[in-house]
């Protein structure tokens, strides 16, 4: 005796035809899931894209930069680093590069005719020629200080300092007035993310600082690059290396820590939005279940006819579960596409690299399939239980 059978391809075809016959209703019922999935993909995509941007920035800047600064003594007074601190830090374990800067007191003016109040909050700092290399800073215009220019009244301006002084394009012979003396501007730095106070400084060589401003040469901040594998160990030994007599009066910090914290915050910030997206998906699932129940009621005669043509209960159940799955999957795909587009658009606008979360997409599609099966289960069971004669009766 021949058995009733429905090939998988026919099952898919029958399910899709049922949806195709009611396009408007299908579109509306799919909307809920599409919105939910789009929200989830957007939240994951945008946060991952921005985190990826931060990560790339961190990668470029490196997390192995440490800075050593004088702290306060027991009575709360500001201390200074010992004079040979830079030298002793160079010899500390795991330290690869060292560059100190020293604060110089003096006003910074555009020229000698400007009132001494118009300093624009710019300070003078003595710096070593290797400072940009250690901070991974870029020179926007001109050149940085070198061994030769460090001995002369030559300055390099931080990005903010140059802007406040109104120096947008560097011309040969451009000079600014530092502490009552003309300094030729050799270059302008691009913004330095790891140490923004450099941006508001006019940098001069140590030799010139000693000569013109009579500083003693002790560093106010020492920047160090350490072996990336041993940043923590290096940090522990730096205080003693900088000031063997008073290691408690030295503070050691990691300038990239702020960026790292931002990154961690980005990754934990999402749970609320993900929760909202999940609620939308659930509401969408209920919408699909609703539409399927109505569909079974409306299509009683079709169910009866199919049974008369030889469909088993299983075939009928399969058809309605198939429709529900197809609706949910359509919603999932539409939502993923919308979410990805929005993510790409937003990342483009923010100049990030677009990251579409592959695991998020996979999970989203998987979840919609599970939801589709669940939403279709009850209507499909009802349809399958319908006896052919009941279904065909008017």
């Amino acid at each position, binding site marked *: *005796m021949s058995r009733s059978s429905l090939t998988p391809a*026919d099952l898919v075809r029958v399910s899709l035809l049922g949806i195709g016959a009611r396009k408007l209703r299908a579109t509306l019922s799919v909307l809920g899931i599409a919105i939910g999935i789009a929200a989830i993909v957007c939240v994951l995509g945008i946060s991952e894209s921005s985190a990826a941007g931060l990560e790339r920035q961190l990668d470029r800047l490196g997390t192995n930069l440490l800075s050593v600064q004088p702290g306060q003594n027991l009575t709360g007074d500001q201390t200074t680093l010992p004079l040979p601190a830079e030298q002793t830090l160079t010899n500390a374990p795991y330290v690869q590069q060292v560059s100190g800067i020293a604060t110089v007191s003096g006003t910074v003016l555009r020229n000698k005719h400007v009132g001494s109040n118009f300093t624009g909050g710019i300070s003078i700092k003595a710096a070593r020629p290797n400072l940009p290399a250690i901070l991974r800073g870029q020179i926007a215009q001109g050149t940085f200080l070198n061994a030769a220019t460090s001995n002369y009244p030559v300055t390099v301006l931080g990005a903010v300092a140059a802007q406040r002084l109104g120096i947008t394009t560097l011309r040969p012979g451009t000079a600014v007035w530092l502490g009552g003396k003309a300094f030729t501007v050799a270059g302008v730095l691009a913004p330095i993310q790891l140490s923004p106070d450099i941006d508001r400084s006019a940098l001069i060589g140590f030799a010139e600082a000693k000569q013109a401003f009579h500083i003693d040469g002790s560093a106010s901040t020492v920047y160090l690059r350490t072996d990336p594998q041993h940043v923590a160990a290096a940090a522990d030994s730096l205080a003693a290396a900088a000031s063997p007599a008073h290691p408690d009066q030295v503070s050691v910090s990691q300038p990239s820590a702020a960026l790292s914290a931002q990154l961690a915050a980005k990754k934990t910030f999402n749970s609320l939005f993900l929760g909202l997206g999940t609620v939308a998906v659930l509401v969408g699932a209920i919408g699909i279940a609703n539409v399927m129940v109505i569909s079974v009621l409306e299509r009683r005669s079709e169910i009866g006819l199919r049974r*008369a043509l030889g469909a088993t209960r299983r075939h009928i159940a399969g058809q309605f579960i198939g429709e529900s799955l197809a609706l949910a999957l359509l919603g999932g795909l539409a939502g993923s596409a919308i979410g990805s587009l929005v993510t790409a658009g937003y990342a483009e606008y923010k100049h990030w690299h677009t990251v579409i979360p592959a695991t998020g997409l996979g999970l989203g599609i998987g979840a919609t399939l599970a939801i589709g099966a669940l939403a279709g289960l009850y209507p499909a069971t009802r349809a399958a239980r319908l006896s052919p004669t009941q279904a065909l009766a008017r």
Partner: protein
Amino acid sequence: MHKIYPGPVEVLHGIDLTVERDEQVAIVGPSGSGKSTLLNLIGILDRPTSGTLVLDGHDTAALSDGRLAGLRAATIGFVFQQFFLLDYRTALDNVADGLLYTATPLRERRRRAAEVLDRVGLGDRLRHRPGQLSGGERQRVAIARALVGRPALVLADEPTGSLDTANGTAILKLLSELHDEGTTLVVITHDPTVAGAMDREIHIRDGRIHPEPT
């Protein structure tokens, strides 16, 4: 056979009926006499409350849902008064769906459907949807769907009930051609012309078979 619906309403009180292969039988009787219930039982769309139904040598009481469906797909063709065509499918696909549950490939289903539609005189209406066809044409599509699987038994419930005389005659002609080819035919009808064209008339009243008036 007996059939009792929940209520309880006893619709059929002991029907004992044998339809021979190749026979064509008309079932006549007033509304509510149980004709349709009998046809549903013969078409194994429903099971009798008590008694047995032997179809093509199989005792249907012993068969699972899957087996019954297989039997319906392979050996029975149904024609309904309300046609039951799917509005969103073309005439061709409505007929091809008659083979949907027989594991016949789509291409073959369509080929045979076109053949049968041609035979019922709708060779030029393959791409039309039921909404674009007249009542007579729709019933011919429904008959084509019943025939496409070359069933041994065709069951028709008032096939001419919603058609005018001209269309009714055409349908009747189609059914008798079918019979000439060796198909067993059981037709419920109110129409004396249709009943008269059959080999045998079975009169049902209040769920019982009445002797044939001659």
